[in-house]
């Protein structure tokens, strides 16, 4: 039983339809509990006031924005190397989710920045990098939309994703160099968990789990749709040829 079996569209459809109810329930549950906990039951922080509650949407969405791009990079590579259609279609399905996550991170960041820094938008390295990431998502999706032949589109977007990843990283470095910013360091992220007290940590963890599960749910749904659309296209083409 190899993992590549799931790259077969039919197998993927079966497995995903089995798994969907579980991840959906998980996503809804984690998100509901996590957001409720974060919004209603956490105390104010001394330096942030009640705005600390924004981290429950800001941090998970920002994490997902980056992780989804990484996932797209991996699936693009799998497509380019092993030519599994599901892999390419999963990358296509993930892009809009990643774009929305980036948008959420940007918007909540701007709303949060207003009282904290006194401005809606600051050309801070992190914010700027996310804006650039947003542009990469837009370009990637636009390229998918523009090309008729699905395999050509998968190949070209895969190559774009590879090149884009390198340049997204490079931009991150360049932007850092260009302007040292106002943004909190990684104090609120996973690797520095000792910096954040348990009161905030557990609901944050729940929210992160919720966002991940929500992503998986949407990804499965969207990939199923893409597989069906791809099959529809193949059938129509066959009909035209017959």
């Amino acid at each position, binding site marked *: 039983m190899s993992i590549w079996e799931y790259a077969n569209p039919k197998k993927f459809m079966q497995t995903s339809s089995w798994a969907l109810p579980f991840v959906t329930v998980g996503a809804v549950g984690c998100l509901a509990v996590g957001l409720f906990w974060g919004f209603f039951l956490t105390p104010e922080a001394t330096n942030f006031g009640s705005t600390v509650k924004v981290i429950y949407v800001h941090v998970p969405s920002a994490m997902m924005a980056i992780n989804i791009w990484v996932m797209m990079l991996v699936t693009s590579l799998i497509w380019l190397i092993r030519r599994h259609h599901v892999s390419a279609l999963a990358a296509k399905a993930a892009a809009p989710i990643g774009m929305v996550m980036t948008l959420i991170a940007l918007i909540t960041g701007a709303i949060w920045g207003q009282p904290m820094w006194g401005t809606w938008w600051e050309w801070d390295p992190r914010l700027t990098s996310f804006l*650039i990431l947003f*542009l*990469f998502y*837009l*370009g990637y999706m*636009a*390229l998918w939309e*523009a*090309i008729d032949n699905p395999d*050509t589109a998968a*190949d*070209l977007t895969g*190559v*774009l994703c*590879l*090149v*884009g990843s390198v*340049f*997204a990283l*490079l*931009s991150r*470095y*360049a*932007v850092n*160099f*260009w302007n040292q910013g106002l943004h909190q360091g990684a104090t609120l992220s996973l690797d520095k968990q000792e910096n954040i007290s348990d009161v905030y940590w557990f609901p944050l963890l729940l929210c992160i789990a919720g966002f991940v599960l929500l992503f998986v749910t949407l990804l499965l749904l969207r990939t199923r749709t893409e597989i069906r659309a791809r099959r529809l296209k193949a059938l129509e083409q066959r009909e035209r040829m017959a």
Partner: protein
Amino acid sequence: MIALLTRDLRLAVRAGGGFGLGLAFFLIVVTLVPFGVGPEGGVLARIAPGILWLGALLACLLSLDRIFALDFEDGSLDLLATAPIPLEGVVSVKAAAHWLTTGLPLVLAAPVFGVLLHLPQPAYFWLVVSLMLGTPALSVLGTFGAALTVGLKRGGLLLSLLVLPLYVPTLIFGAELVRRGANGMDTQVPLLMLAGITAACVAVVPFASAAAIRVNLR
């Protein structure tokens, strides 16, 4: 390969668009900026490095969609792909021809436009150096974008959307180099980064461009 380069240059000269249009566009951008921000020399001098870099970048962008489109339409691209030169070589030559017809004239003309924007004295040297080092990367990356969109009917706008994010690092380091040069600050880091990015792009991106062309011709 040399034959391809001379052919492309000759085509650019005959078509007339190559050298002239990019420069004229650059001039217009530089002319319009003072109308937008006001004529005070101090303000202009401060933003001149950025404006000059941005102008060069946009002028470069303008001619990108023609890199492969004409060869695709008349079938030359099919024939070049079956010819005994590697496609990686073809796209490199295309990028070189684009640079010679748009990048190089911009580099040479930039100091003149710098005068119009009150660019500070010490910055001229760095302006030319940064454009000289940076514009090849713009051409190579633009060739990649053009290769991705070669078969598309409405590729122009998409091309800009794909290519502009890739220009971010080059723009940042290029403009930063000029700004630091103008203020007499240390220029080593942006200089090395700019040169490094260009060198890496020239070495690696043609492979991606050639792959994209192969997919598009399939």
